[in-house]
């Protein structure tokens, strides 16, 4: 995993090649991002490459290709990143096209130091970089025109993909100027527009990828077919960590279309002419497994162990004041335990990878969120240099974190298969493989004691968290685990915003055979539920309105306040007359530097929760594409609701009990609430939007159910409880 600092020389050839081919302008440069998430600053940094770094290609026909260095998994980066460039470039938006970036250090994430899409960071990390890229190109185009016309640059301006010299009424299109502009040295510094002058940023813009996504032509990883390619399905161990002891492939080999059966490190691979023969043959394999210690894992027992651990002191993640003293001063106190299960990402497109392995070159097509890591892992597996590995990032049929695997599990396995088969392969995970393939959102158990003073305000809060670290034993551990604390395990809990003089957050990070990973909103997916339902309990204990109570214990200029108040106003909190049997619940949470409050209106139908309406208020700083923000909040709410209401991955004797969408049920059309998204006007720099809508929905629903029937929901998913 050390290629993060390796320069990619073939990239330069690529740039020259494509520039020559198109006779156009190739431009871009590296800018380290300031700030970002805590670990970003500590991430190994690639050395800046200057020049070149291609984000823009302008062709003689005036078409502009924006090379996007982030993976498009639904979050809209193929639209929002081009908007940043086009704004400063003064480009004709109707002529913008998008291409996915190859792997090269010039395309590294400005904060992570590697090419990766995650952490709701695409806009924040690209905000300055992409605008500078666009502005630099514009400066060069203006300069080229001024030189051709022999006029001062200051008399020329750029507009709608043209450079104009008003005095002499001359103008030239970007396509006409690109070749000359490409020969000019990059400007050292460029001035960026003031927000008041934005023409594209901040306006609702239609997605550039919609046309191909509605006519079936968008290419996902599963849609890649290359000559001579075989489809491979793998029979993997039914227990995490298990190994093949012996196998009999006699029946499998008889299936028409089967080319071969191979033992690979993760199991038995069946290579065939297509999915159906591969699947038919795989079903006929007889395999004896050495299951290993993973076979001892069962959910009931794991829950009991976690809950017991939650009652014992852990590693201290945050300590303010003295909680023992605080509880002595408390007028009233409560204790509660919380549980959330393992969760699969269950993206609609199951995992898949196409590998074409040649003696000195490996070409990979897959929908990945983590190109640099995957390339390094593929290279190491195939005993090649990273430069000899090429990755084509297709559209991702959902990512949600699963496609950024710190162990590059699905890519390494596919390269191993290609090595075994000796022909181009497409490794396809069936839905069952994907569901049972691990790399889950960890199971968490929490225990909280909290006390309030006579005036109702909290005086003591002791929170103990139990769950696996998602970065343990990965290359991320070194810079994301500090003093025994994985920052992602306690985010949202150790960083809770409320004023509590005596506060302690402890963490236990037990290890077991279940592979775990980030899942949309990472640690926040569980901490918001715990913190925001407990705060609601305190409000009730204090006899206060839940929103008034929160406002009373939030710091004066906290950005949480704005979203809470906006959501309350728009939802008609305390004012709107609700239908009989309906109730509202609220939650507010910050994640990825964005603040989201959600108010859910719920009812019970035959003991099942119905969510009718969700009013969300979001403060994500300046907004690039309001339509994109709305889409992402809607999406994050639906994703969070599926988990809140229905979903759990459970184990029996090491086996995952769920397999497909009938027993791991995403929210369906008929369950969809009406969703309203309201955006707080802000002049702050843009912050994350892909994930922050997820954390508040589960606690908002749980708090609404309490208001409705007086029962606290402290264990997800909620539909395992009998409610009336």
């Amino acid at each position, binding site marked *: 995993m050390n290629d993060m600092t390796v320069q990619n020389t073939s990239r330069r050839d690529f740039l020259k090649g494509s520039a020559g081919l198109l006779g156009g302008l190739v431009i871009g440069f590296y800018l380290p991002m300031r700030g970002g998430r805590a670990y970003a600053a500590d991430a190994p940094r690639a050395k800046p490459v200057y020049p070149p770094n291609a984000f823009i290609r302008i062709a003689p026909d005036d078409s502009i290709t924006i090379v996007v260095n982030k993976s*498009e998994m*639904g979050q*809209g980066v193929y639209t929002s990143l081009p908007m940043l460039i086009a704004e400063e470039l003064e480009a004709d938006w109707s002529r913008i096209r998008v291409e996915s970036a190859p792997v090269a250090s010039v395309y590294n994430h400005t904060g992570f130091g590697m090419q990766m899409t995650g952490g709701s960071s695409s806009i924040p990390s690209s905000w300055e970089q992409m605008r500078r890229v666009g502005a630099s190109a514009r400066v060069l185009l203006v300069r080229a025109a001024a030189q051709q016309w022999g006029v001062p640059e200051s008399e020329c301006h750029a507009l709608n993909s043209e450079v104009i010299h008003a005095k002499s009424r001359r103008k030239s299109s970007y396509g006409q100027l690109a070749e000359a502009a490409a020969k000019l040295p990059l400007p050292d510094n460029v001035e960026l527009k003031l927000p008041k002058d934005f023409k594209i940023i901040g306006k609702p813009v*239609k*997605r550039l*990828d*919609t*046309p*191909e*996504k*509605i*006519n*079936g*032509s*968008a*290419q*996902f990883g*599963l*849609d890649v*077919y290359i000559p001579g390619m075989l*489809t491979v399905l793998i029979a993997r161990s039914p227990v995490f960590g298990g190994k093949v002891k012996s196998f009999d492939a006699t029946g499998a080999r008889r299936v*028409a279309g089967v080319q071969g059966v191979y033992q690979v490190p993760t199991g038995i691979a069946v290579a065939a*002419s*297509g*999915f*159906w*023969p591969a699947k038919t043959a795989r079903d006929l394999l007889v395999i004896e497994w050495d299951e290993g210690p993973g076979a001892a894992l069962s959910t009931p027992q794991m829950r009991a162990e976690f809950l017991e651990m939650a009652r014992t002191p852990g590693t201290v993640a945050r300590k303010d004041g003295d909680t023992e003293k605080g509880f002595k001063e408390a007028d009233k106190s409560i204790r509660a335990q919380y549980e959330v299960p393992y969760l699969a990402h*269950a*993206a*609609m*497109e*199951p995992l898949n990878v196409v590998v074409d392995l040649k003696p000195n070159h490996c070409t990979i097509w897959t929908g990945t969120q983590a190109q640099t890591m995957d390339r390094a892992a593929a290279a190491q597996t195939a005993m090649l240099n990273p430069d000899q590995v090429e990755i084509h990032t297709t*559209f*991702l*049929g*959902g990512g*949600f974190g699963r496609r950024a695997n710190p162990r590059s599990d699905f890519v390494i396995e596919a390269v191993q298969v290609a090595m075994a088969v000796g022909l181009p392969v497409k490794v*396809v995970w*069936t*839905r069952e493989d994907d569901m049972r393939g691990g790399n889950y959102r960890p199971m968490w158990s929490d225990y909280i004691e909290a006390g309030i003073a006579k005036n109702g305000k909290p005086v003591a809060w002791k929170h103990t968290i139990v769950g696996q670290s998602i970065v343990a034993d990965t290359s991320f551990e070194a810079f994301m685990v500090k003093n025994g604390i994985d920052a992602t395990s306690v985010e949202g809990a150790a960083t809770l915003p409320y004023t509590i003089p005596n506060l302690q957050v402890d963490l236990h990070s037990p290890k077991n055979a279940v592979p775990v990973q980030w899942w949309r909103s990472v640690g926040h997916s569980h901490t918001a539920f715990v913190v925001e339902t407990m705060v609601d309990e305190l409000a009730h204990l204090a006899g206060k309105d839940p929103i008034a109570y929160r406002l009373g214990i939030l710091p004066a200029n906290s950005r949480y306040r704005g979203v809470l108040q906006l959501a309350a106003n728009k939802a008609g909190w305390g004012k709107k007359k609700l239908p009989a049997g309906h109730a509202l619940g609220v939650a507010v949470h910050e994640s990825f530097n964005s603040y989201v409050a959600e108010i859910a209106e719920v009812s019970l139908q035959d003991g099942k929760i119905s969510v009718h309406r969700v009013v969300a208020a979001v403060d994500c700083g300046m907004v690039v594409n309001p*339509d994109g923000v709305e*889409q992402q909040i*809607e*999406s*994050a*709410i*639906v*994703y969070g609701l*599926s988990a809140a209401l229905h979903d759990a991955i459970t184990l029996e004797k090491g086996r995952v009990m769920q397999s*497909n*969408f*009938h027993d791991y049920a*995403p*929210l*369906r*059309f*008929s369950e*969809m609430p*009406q*969703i309203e998204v309201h955006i707080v006007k802000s002049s702050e720099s843009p912050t994350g939007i892909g994930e922050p809508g997820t954390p508040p929905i589960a606690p908002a629903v749980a708090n609404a159910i309490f208001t409705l029937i007086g029962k606290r929901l402290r264990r997800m998913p909620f539909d395992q409880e009998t409610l009336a």
Partner: protein
Amino acid sequence: MISLNINGKDTKVDVDPSTPLLWVLRDHLQMTGTKYGCGIAQCGACTVHLDGRAIRSCVTPVSVASGKQVTTIEGLAETTLGKSVQAAWQEVDVPQCGYCQSGQIMAATALLKEHPHPSEAQISTAMDGILCRCGTYNRIRSAIQKAAEVKGDAK
């Protein structure tokens, strides 16, 4: 050999007759607009039309499709209704990751063919079987209503 008519074109495939239509479309004909999501008729990503009706191609043996008209997302724009549904999808800007959208559009088109002005309940019933993990359901509803309006106006 199995004879098929897909999007108005006759074609023959040499395949085991029990092979699901989905994999014939994808692996044999490289028509990749129809998606694999679950393989057990739970998610609807594989929805195509068989003689105008929405079916799950992942559980439909190719032999069943022989002698019938198969319409896939690639051929949808050849009908006025299909075109208007796609136009509504474009106007509402429905897709996010986009993976489920072929199935959504095929299901919506079959619904509108049967019920040109579907009620809320009819929309919910028809679309309940098509999963979307990105949560585009509300936009799907708007797009269906828009397509229904356009159809109504065109009379």
